């Protein structure tokens, strides 16, 4: 069975990091709709307005932690308050350069987060996690 396509959302206040993530996602050839946001509130709005995506595909979300205005944790907390039918479409990964123990263990408390990933995102890491989704 060939692995299917997925939607992707990247949330990172660094434009370069969004660019890198998008590039790597496109290189896998599995990105259906790939969106990146440098502000978490805008991503949240997008998720709410999308409701259930037209193409009925799951969405992989890569979320940075340290961002101004709304950080990764605040975003995840807001996301967890959304109705379940919306939440069910998403698989969240935290993608951060943080090596802070608190950040890493705090991620574990959020059941909606599948895994903590270290920056930089590489093709290898992404293929590995995508294999686990299939």
């Amino acid at each position, binding site marked *: 069975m060939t692995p299917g396509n997925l939607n992707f959302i990247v949330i990172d206040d660094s434009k*370069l990091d969004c660019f890198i993530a998008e590039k790597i996602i496109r290189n896998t050839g599995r990105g259906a709709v790939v969106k990146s946001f440098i502000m978490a509130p805008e991503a949240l709005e997008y998720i709410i307005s999308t409701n259930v995506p037209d193409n009925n595909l799951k969405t992989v979300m890569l979320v940075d932690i340290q961002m101004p205005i709304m950080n990764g944790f605040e975003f995840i907390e807001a996301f967890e308050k959304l109705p379940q039918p919306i939440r069910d479409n998403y698989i969240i990964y935290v993608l951060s350069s943080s090596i802070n123990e608190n950040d890493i263990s705090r991620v574990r408390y959020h059941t909606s987060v599948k895994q903590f990933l*270290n920056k930089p995102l590489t093709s290898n890491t992404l293929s590995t996690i995508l294999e686990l989704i299939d």
Partner: protein
Amino acid sequence: MEKPERIRVLYIDDEINNLNGFKASFRLDYNVMIASDTADALVMLEKHPDIRVILCDQRMPTQTGVQFFEQIRSQHPLPIRVLITGYTDIESVIDSINKGNIFRYIKKPWTDTDVKSAIEESNKFYIANSLLTLKNEELEKAYLELDKFAYSVTHDMRGPLMSLLGAIDISKNSDDISEIKDTLGMMEKSVQKLDDFIKSIHEYYSLKRGQLQISEINFKEVVADLYDLYSIAGKLEHINFTVNVVQNDLFRSDAVFLKIILNNLVANAFKFQRHDIVGKIVDLNITVHKGNVELIVRDNGIGIKNEYVNDIFKMFFRATSSEIGSGFGLYNVKDALTKLNGEIFVTSTLNEGTTFKVIIPSK
């Protein structure tokens, strides 16, 4: 009237003659309070938290001195405790000293010299203890700041480095020259960001650790470098940069601190521009007048949301997702201004621009 610097001393004894004798002997040297039983003494301790030394007789009808000291130790830990006693009670005194309830003891009948020396020694110990408490508080504050600092360093220094690694990875796997060039352009920005952050750390430490170096300030000279630097950037980015200096009076201050303030404010005015408009401006107006300097930096850039205006001087606060901010610049400005006794005022309208006004008195 009592002089405020006299040490406040509390003496407790059930014999009125001793109390009066004590007061008569020491009232000129110390701010003496007396109590004829420990219940009265407790009331006085509650009322006067500035009591530094307590001298207490051992043999009293309701409670011994040792018992009293043991009782008050946890509630009033600061005053230094001195016991007055005869030889017959020596066992209980030794026990009490070993438990840490008593700093000194004076044997009965006391001489003025004994009492004076005990009070002076107690006072020194009191001062050393209070200093230690103060230092501990300072240390705790410094640790908190260090924690915040270390956390941010992983983000602000490791972040750009990880971006670079990611970008290198993409370029290595690409054969498309124009894509590689795009990536290089982004890598350049990332390196500049890291360098800016390192410079801010340098400023932070020169502000924290540095002593003020006061000299005569010629503002035309101070802004010369700044002008050269930013007029080039202005040409490249189509920002009209004007500097206007009016200085007829002498002004004394720290040149390095002033440069940190001006640099950060001007750099911000350049950074937070609206990229899509024609007629971008940054103005710097400097006026020295009646022993004050007024620095006004005005731009017609993105502005600051009302709700964030009060937070912009906090360490690592960023009111925008625009990549260029480190959240360090205005914190350093505020820090420099505190040292120069200066003030800063912000007026800003979102999508119209921001004006910072700084007033610094001459030293």
